[in-house]
């Protein structure tokens, strides 16, 4: 899977590349509008991460171009503009997802993951990791052929962890992923702990032990 990161902030771009490459994606970076158009002409990508504020051009125009040239890459806009208007405009113009800065890399990773899964029509809708099997359509979770019943939050949490497998996900990232905009309203994210505990015990009851590694209550990792 090839991803093009169009982002002028080099440190952010570098971190995105490193984080995504841990999941075996191939990332290429460009830092301006011109290089981006060049790359897009020459190569094919499965996913494009597009910053809207580029030093030499508007990301929206680039999105226009991608759609006009019928480039079949999924596009996720990563932008400092976070108003609803901008989101609606971006999605209307043909972007597949919109992520407002600042975002956690885990969140970005799960969005990329979801986008790529939607794009590859051939892929089956069964996700397997360790002894866990998830049917993404029916949202049924099986451990060693035993169906376990999860709440919506627990299911989302499980997907989030597996989507970021082998990487440490912060408590804050989980909180934001689970509660969306409401995350803004919390003073602490301790409720994540309760969800993790419940999920762990449900998986453990079904025989899937030690899948989730807890790091001093701050980070969580799905170990494959």
């Amino acid at each position: 899977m090839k991803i093009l990161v169009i982002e002028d902030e080099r440190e952010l771009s570098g971190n995105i590349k490193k984080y995504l490459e841990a999941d075996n994606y191939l990332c290429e970076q460009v830092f301006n509008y011109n290089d981006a158009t060049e790359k897009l002409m020459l190569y094919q990508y499965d996913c494009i991460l597009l910053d809207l504020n580029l030093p030499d051009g508007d990301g929206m125009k680039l999105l226009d171009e991608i759609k006009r040239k019928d480039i079949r890459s999924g596009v996720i806009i990563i932008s400092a503009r976070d108003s609803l208007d901008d989101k609606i405009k971006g999605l209307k113009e043909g972007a597949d997802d919109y992520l407002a800065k600042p975002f956690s890399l885990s969140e970005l990773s799960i969005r990329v993951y979801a986008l790529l899964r939607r794009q590859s029509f051939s892929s089956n809708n069964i996700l397997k990791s360790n002894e866990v099997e998830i049917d993404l359509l029916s949202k049924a979770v099986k451990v060693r052929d035993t169906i376990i019943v999860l709440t919506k939050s627990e299911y989302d949490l499980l997907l989030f962890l597996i989507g970021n497998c082998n990487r440490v996900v912060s408590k804050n990232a989980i909180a934001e992923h689970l509660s969306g905009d409401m995350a803004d309203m919390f003073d602490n994210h301790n409720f994540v702990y309760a969800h993790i505990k419940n999920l762990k015990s449900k998986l453990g009851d079904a025989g899937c032990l030690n899948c989730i590694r807890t790091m001093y209550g701050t980070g969580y990792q799905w170990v494959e």
Partner: protein
Amino acid sequence: MKKLLNKSLVQFFVYATIVLGCSAPLFYYVMEFFYMKDLDELILFRSDEFIEDRLLSFFPDGIELWNQYNEDLQIILYSANCPLDKCVQVPFYNKAEGHDVDYRVLYRKIELEGEPYLLVSRIPMIEPKDLTRTLVSIYSLFFFLLLISFTIFQKFVSKRLWRPFYDSLQKIESFHLDEGNVPVFKKNDIAEFTRLNRLLANLIANNVQVYTRQKQFIENASHELQTPLAVFQSQLDMLLQQPDITENQMNIIQSLYSVSFRLTRLNKNLLLLAKIDNSQFREMEEIDFTGMLKALIDGVGFLAESNKITISLTLEAGMLFIANKTLLESLVTNLLVNAIRHNYRDGDVWITGTKDYLLIRNTGKKMELDRQKIFQRFNRNTEERKGNGLGLSIVYQICKFHGWKIEYDYVEEMHQFTCFFHVSGS
């Protein structure tokens, strides 16, 4: 405070009274003087006429009869005491008045058959009290006329003269900096007012410009902050991936995450405020408020559960509002989260929604909050760090934006916020 026109009227009357009062004695003496001159001419004329026409055919035995019929032109025996040939003022008994009255008198020496006599020509002067009375009545009439005419003058002329001033005054009164509507002053042909209006217009335009730039600056600054925040957070995410992190290091990372989160939230709220200030939420739509409230309350449900707070809900069915959806959601969420956040374990939150108002009451700290400060930015009632001090000012701004009214009350040891959707006059 007095009105300008009334003040000038009062001052004019004080001035007029003083001037008239001071000039009254002058008037008195001038009138008396000219009256005296007039009488002097007359007595001189009479005595001259008598001497020329009558004296030759007059005999001493006719004196008594003459004197009987000519009270003011008498012939008496010569006396050296009387000043001759000049007009003097001497008191005589006046029969008509019944007492002594000042007379203008002229003594002339005449000879009848060789004997010296005195011809006395006299006319009574006006009495001082009569003159005073006359003057007072004239003055009163004059003063009264002045009063009426000046009031009328003031009413019509001055009012018209000052109209541009009052017009400008009214326009400034209805000017609000945050609404940014620069008043347009009426043209007029008075140099001072034109100058005043020009200066005012400049002053206001400058202020509006500075204010707009300031608002724009806040928005831009918030935007610019998003990128470094994104870098900061991504670095933390990368740091978390390092193998062999110790617990101490992890604690530091967690505290950095909290800081990053707080910064992000603060920045987002500032941006939201700036956007409301800049009226960037123009889209109004019809909103099913009943449905929205239910959904939002569901959304904060687990926050309430984790604090064992009971939410009781009374909702009128089918509430429909024209409002900006994003803002309305933000308003309700802020109030809800406040009610839960500033509560205690096992506390209560009551929510009542009707077409006219939304009322959110909650148990909490048993202390009334400062009504004046509660909606101000970064106002904290306690040293506790709950929220970032922007929630209620966001609520306030959203209400202001929609023309609603938000009120805080402390009733029966409960904090309550009421948002009125139909404010008279809006």
